[in-house]
């Protein structure tokens, strides 16, 4: 079985991405709680920091992977031959293409903002 055909691999990847995103949220919350005054200057300085940039990048990559698998699950639930007949293949392919483009655009755009 190919790597991406394995449900177990997919399950581990999704959970690992979710864990990384959760850790990033804790990192953000810690910054907000531990900073006496959160204003524009401290907020900007925080996101300009090298460590935050690295963590934000890891978060965004995890988010992209998680979204890719998540939208695959939604698509294979609803765009099936049983529901859409002969149109299912083209609707599903268009949907996946749209997801891929959207995720790529969001990822590139976010990286431009962060770096």
């Amino acid at each position, binding site marked *: 079985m190919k790597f991406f055909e394995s*449900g177990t691999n997919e399950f581990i990847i999704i959970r690992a991405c979710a864990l990384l995103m959760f850790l990033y949220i804790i990192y953000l919350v810690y910054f907000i709680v531990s900073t006496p005054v959160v204003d524009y200057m401290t907020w900007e300085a925080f996101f300009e920091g090298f460590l935050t940039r690295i963590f934000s990048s890891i978060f965004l990559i995890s988010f992209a992977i998680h979204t890719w698998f998540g939208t695959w699950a939604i698509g294979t639930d609803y765009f099936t031959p049983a529901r859409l007949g002969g149109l299912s293949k083209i609707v599903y392919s268009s949907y996946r293409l749209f997801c891929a483009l959207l995720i790529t655009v969001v990822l590139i755009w976010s990286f431009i903002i962060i770096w």
Partner: protein
Amino acid sequence: MSAVIPVSHLQTLKMSIYRFDPSEDEKPYMQEIVVEVPTDKDIMVLDALHLAKVKEPSLSYRRSCREGVCGSDGMNINGKNGLACITPLSEAVKRNKLTLRPMPGLPVVRDLIVDMKLFYDQLEKVQPFLITKSENPEKGRLQSPKEREELDGLYECILCGCCSTACPSFWWNPDKFLGPAALLQSWRFIADSRDEATDERLDDLEDAFSLYRCHGIMNCVSVCPKGLNPTEAISNIRNKLISRKRQ
């Protein structure tokens, strides 16, 4: 029933029942049937259905043992799957109305009768029987009491289909996702100390659909008339698949 019960001990119950006869009806419809049910005892939904059938003899449904053992009369009772024969009216009726529909997600043969082929096809895939490779021992394949205990909560499934037809993942992909009933049976044989095909069974569940389409919403647990826990069984199989990956 009304012939032997005093009229003062009867009350009316509005039943709304899904009707569809493919040889006569273009599309399904809900039929309102009013029946008289006793107030001095808590009859079951199946008893109320019998009363409805007296008024409407063409009404069709499956039933056999009428005590929650055969699993024939699984249906959707006021929005929740269950066995009509062991669901009391006091539990099912809301605002003096009882709505009965066939179990969702499977093709309707007629009225409350569904075609269970998809369900049985998935059950067949998990090979719900012991597979052994070693020589048959003289005294049979023995288990310790502890090994036998592992099967409690698994072997009791009566294959009524209430769980699988309450599962959205099974509704969307009934041909690919095995469904909670079949997966409970799969774990029943993986967990059996006498079975010798664990690896092959796990290999068959490794793809992205057969098992991993379970998102753990636990509808199956909520509706199981035998109080079983297919979600836990699925989780056990998943843990086994993941731990196998680590080795």
